[in-house]
């Protein structure tokens, strides 16, 4: 059966990651992404069924919270974001895809929109965001690994991709 565009995208991300990028050290990322890929490719429907989706979400959260580095975490988030934003903006995943063109983009906080809630800073896997609560936060581009976690977490749409 033809997979839905979301499933195909998520599978593409996972395929690239498990075959080429995953270092294989920590269990959550190594086995978790492998199983996410397995669930998606084994699914008999175009888009994962609710119980499959539940398992995927659980794995996503597991990797997000227990993986050793930001790379694995970002992959889990990408996959979930694609699947959860079904029919939504497909651009998201394209721009997170790790690759040479990552060099060309950067994430930026719009000081007019940022309310200084610190959520982005708390969730940044590499602690690249700093600031004082209730004042606009700033991303340190040297440290940033461009995983997009901050953008996904921002409730005020203050973070965007620039190039």
């Amino acid at each position, binding site marked *: 059966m033809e997979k839905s565009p979301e499933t195909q995208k998520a599978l593409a991300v996972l395929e690239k990651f*498990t*075959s*080429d*990028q*995953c*270092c*294989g*050290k*920590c*269990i*959550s990322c*190594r*086995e*978790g992404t*492998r*199983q996410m890929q*397995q*669930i998606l490719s*084994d699914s008999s429907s175009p888009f994962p069924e609710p119980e499959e989706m539940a*398992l995927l979400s*659980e*794995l996503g959260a*597991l990797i997000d*919270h*227990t*993986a*050793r580095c930001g790379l694995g975490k970002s992959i889990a988030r990408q996959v979930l974001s694609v699947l959860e934003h079904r029919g939504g903006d497909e651009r998201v995943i394209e721009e997170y895809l790790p690759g040479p063109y990552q060099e060309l983009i950067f994430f930026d906080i719009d000081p007019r929109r940022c309310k200084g809630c610190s959520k982005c800073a*708390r969730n940044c896997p590499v602690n690249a965001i700093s600031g004082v609560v209730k004042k606009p936060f700033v991303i340190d581009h040297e440290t940033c690994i461009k995983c997009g976690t901050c953008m996904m977490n921002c409730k005020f749409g203050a973070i965007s991709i620039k190039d």
Partner: protein
Amino acid sequence: MGSMTIDGIRVEFTDETNVLTVIRKAGIDLPTLCYVSELSVYGACRLCTVKDDEGRYFASCTVRPREGMNIETNTPELRRYRRTLLELLLASHDRDCTTCNKNGECHLQNLAERMGVRNVRFKSVQERHEVDNSSNCIVRTPSKCILCGDCVRMCDNIQSVDALDFAGKGVATLVTPAYNRRLADTDCVGCGQCRVVCPTGAISIKSDVEAVWAALADPTVRVVAQVAPAVRTAIGDRFGFPVGKNVMNRLVTVMHRLGFEEVYDTAFGADLTVAEESRELQERLASGERLPLFTSCCPAWVRFCEKKHPDFIPNLSTCRSPMQMFGAVLRAWDREAPDEKGRRLVSVAIMPCTAKKDEILRPESHTMGVQDVDFVLTTEELTGMIQAYGLNLNGAEKDAADMPFGITSGAGIIFGSSGGVTEAVLRNLISGHDRAKLDELKRTAVRSEAGMREFTFTHQGRDIRAAVVSGLRNADNLLNAIREGREHYDFVEFMACPGGCVMGGGQPVSTHGELFRRRRDALYEADINMQIKKTSENPLLDTLYATLLKGREHELLHRNTGGENTPA
């Protein structure tokens, strides 16, 4: 120094290097698969993940304790993560548990049970890999490997052998010798410490159990056994005895019932070693040649020296190990007084050691072209045999080791602990039964616990600089120091396993923290109960040197490479 909050309880910490240790000290045994306190921190299994009050998740083994930390270890979410992690591991694991050598003792199996994993929701993605049977000591079963890296760090951090490492990446990661070689083609010395730390059945002891069963059932052979000192204070672990209980007497009874015709004590072989080695030490001290004298009792150490530090081979004592000396004497005895029923002698050695399995096959372990010891069984294998037969050490009657080699000295028994050989040899240099001098020796660093210790012992006005080393990383450091002229010694005892034979690669593994101390102390306890403290006081030795060994000391008790002993 400081305090932190763990699950709402204030906990003090002092010099703990990571949060996990503090949590465990607070009485919460967080599960881990890749954390071994002696090894470097790896942080791969993620089972010890905790959450702090700012909502951050981190693996507690990788973070230093900080003043004012407030963490939770057991939220429903964290428990679910732990279960899922185990499910993920099980999905890629060879789950033929019922036929696995580690069945019942597997750490992964254990944790799955503890964390309540009742089904695996993920598809099995297990990959089959070839079993590596090439080594004489250990077997690698890569499909049982969970990539925790404990063996890799043991082989590197503690043993500096580096026979195993990670290869590949992602899901294709493997723990393997470099270039996917067979273990036999690496620098592996067979110490078996990788097997000690392996949480699963991925690294196991090469079994000789079937061959020994066959010999025991064969009416044309007579099977005799020798039991190493370190076995007696460890095998009881498996039969419900308190850790470190000396069960030698019960073991003799049970082994007789298994069919071993005679059961001897390798401590007698150790006495022979002490006699020869102290003579060798005195000779070398007098001539000043080939000093320091290195002990040669530990086969893993001898291999290590040959493979990594060949320039020090001349320093190795020419003495055979206690097992080999005893093996040669048993064969010679059998030749002089053959069995009345004309049965062939099969000599089995019960050892705490995996490397001994390799030692018996070496060319210099043959006398007159015949292999001296036929089989080595580790403590674990003998346990398996006793259990398969349906016997139990617990409740067995006590018996003493058989004659004519049943009399041993305390010096022979303490061989099982790191420092024992040195103490035994130096004891033998003391003239007469000088209690004050014996006690003085006991109080030097010879009995301390460090992996590398040194002391000076005065003998007949001459200072003997001695060092006791266990763990091959320590050996490596010491050899480099000697080579560079930074250190000078007259006598160095080397044991490959940290703590000596009591912690050997063939011993029962347990999480009991006091394991080493209890096993070692039980050996010193046995020594206390011996009237014969020194090797030279063993009356059997005089008789043997006057009869069987007369003129044949070198042939039977020393390593003769390339001579007439070598098999054709």
